[in-house]
């Protein structure tokens, strides 16, 4: 017990540190002396050096700068689609859980249907037609990722509304809106926080896959998925080009998952020592 929690604290610390670095890098990307899209054919395929920390790619663009800008894309897509899907999912779950049986059943079957749809194909199709940009990517990703949150929230609301303190508040004259906004939201927030963290991870993964397939962020703008796709051509001659974006995706997603898991353990009253 003690040993696992020690490992957990360590991995949580490492994850937080890594996420802090990536976030800081994404925020401060503008300080880099290079333009991420500036082609410089004279200095292509350079090895890492003092001037180019991660070297340059096949167009001579500074790879470190591109990683920073790519991180900006990944993090903002992750955070924004998390916000959209969490907000919508929470509201949907609360409405479903606090409505009558029939409305609840209809709303939940709709969730089941959306969950059964192979979302990735649909996201690609929509991105093709919607003229992909950051906003549309966020929208299409969150369109198919709010259902899990809705389910969690609905289940919590169903159990919450039978609790004495909800009844007590009604007994003092509380209306439905008050119950939802003053009593329910805060009580579901811990589960929602865990779901939110995990949803950032999956949104980043989806965005990277989209960009890798060329349906996400448009080239020449940098994104980790797009850089990975670009590096694929030179995988035999210059494998390091694939390693940087690949590692970034891997570590970021991993860190968010570790964070989500730790949050779950920390926020769960039953698992506290």
């Amino acid at each position: 017990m003690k040993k696992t929690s020690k490992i957990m604290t360590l991995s949580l610390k490492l994850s937080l540190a890594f996420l802090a670095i990536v976030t800081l890098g994404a925020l401060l990307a503008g300080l880099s002396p290079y333009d991420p899209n500036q082609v410089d054919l004279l200095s292509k395929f350079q090895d890492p050096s003092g001037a180019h920390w991660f070297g340059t790619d096949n167009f001579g663009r500074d790879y470190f700068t591109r990683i920073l800008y790519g991180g900006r894309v990944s993090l903002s897509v992750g955070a924004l689609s998390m916000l959209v899907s969490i907000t919508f999912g929470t509201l949907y779950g609360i409405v479903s859980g606090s409505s009558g049986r029939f409305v609840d059943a209809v709303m939940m079957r709709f969730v089941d249907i959306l969950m059964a749809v192979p979302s990735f194909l649909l996201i690609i199709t929509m991105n093709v037609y919607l003229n992909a940009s950051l906003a549309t990517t966020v929208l299409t990703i969150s369109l198919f990722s709010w259902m899990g949150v809705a389910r969690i929230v609905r289940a919590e609301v169903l159990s919450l509304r039978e609790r004495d303190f909800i009844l007590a508040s009604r007994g003092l004259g509380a209306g439905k809106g008050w119950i939802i906004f003053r009593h329910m939201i805060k009580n579901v927030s811990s589960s929602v926080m865990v779901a939110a963290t995990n949803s950032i991870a999956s949104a980043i993964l989806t965005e990277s896959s989209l960009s890798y397939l060329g349906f996400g962020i448009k080239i020449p703008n940098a994104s980790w998925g797009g850089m990975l796709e670009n590096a694929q051509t030179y995988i035999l001659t210059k494998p390091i080009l694939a390693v940087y974006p690949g590692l970034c995706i891997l570590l970021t997603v991993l860190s968010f998952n570790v964070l989500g898991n730790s949050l779950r353990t920390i926020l769960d009253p039953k698992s506290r020592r």
Partner: protein
Amino acid sequence: MSLYEIRDLSIEFPTHLGTVHAVRNVSFDIGENECVALVGESGCGKSVTARSLIGLTEVVGGKVTSGTVTFEGENILSYNEKQWQNYRGNKAAIIFQDAMTALNPTMRIGKQIAECFTFHQNISRSEAEAKAEELLEMVGIPNPREALRRYPHEFSGGMRQRVVIAQALACRPSLLVADEPTTALDVTIQAQILRLLVDLKEKEKNSILLITHDLGVVAGMAQKIVVMYAGTIVEMGTTDEIFYHGRHHYTNGLKEASPRLDGKGKRLHTIEGMPPELINPPTGCPFADRCAHATEECREKMPEMTQVSPTHFVRCLHMAEEGGRA
């Protein structure tokens, strides 16, 4: 003139197995500044009856099928949701059995007490806070100013029940429904909480409807006792009448089943059998199957309420002799 007049109240719960007739033709009054105790074993309909006075029957899945509850000249059972919201907390409030779950664990208690003011009174936040502090002081919470900022888990069970009482009394309701307020507490704290309820009743001039299955709790507090069995009232009267001149065999069985300090060494009396199920309640006296004095007549027809004194009513064909504990 009584504060509440409950007449012919019937409440049903639709379930998969059939309709549960939880409360059948219940009539009684609650006077001003009076403490009425509703006594009976689990599942006899006492909580359901009491909750209907707060309009929480529908919320817990039941349905009032007949009867009226007159309060200030109005039948409150015909209220719509808006009127109920205005009435709850303002005119009548309820405190629940388990103070551990009756407070929102994620909200500071100051805010929870002030809730009532936001619903019914148009006062500023600082005024509400000052009033909440007064209430906490009134129910005997030490350091009320600091306590406002605390969360429920920082209080013990007895303290939480005090907070719940403060919350219920915030808008000075005329009726306080106390649904087994001390069942979850240990005996010494029980006495303190009951004392508090009595003191506050004298101070605030409110009435109390006390629900309990513990006759000991009732004795020191109530002016009037209503004994319920299987959804009906079997006997009601003043506390003295019920305790010393109980005429219904169920009432007397209940009294004998309470442990006594002077009955050392004797086996505690029990009432054999189980109460009838309320999906198909018996047509006759519901207690007939467990009653030593029952005859064929008892099983056939529900006995009428018989008045044995101006305040004492019994629903029994073969009443126990006058003279108290059998």
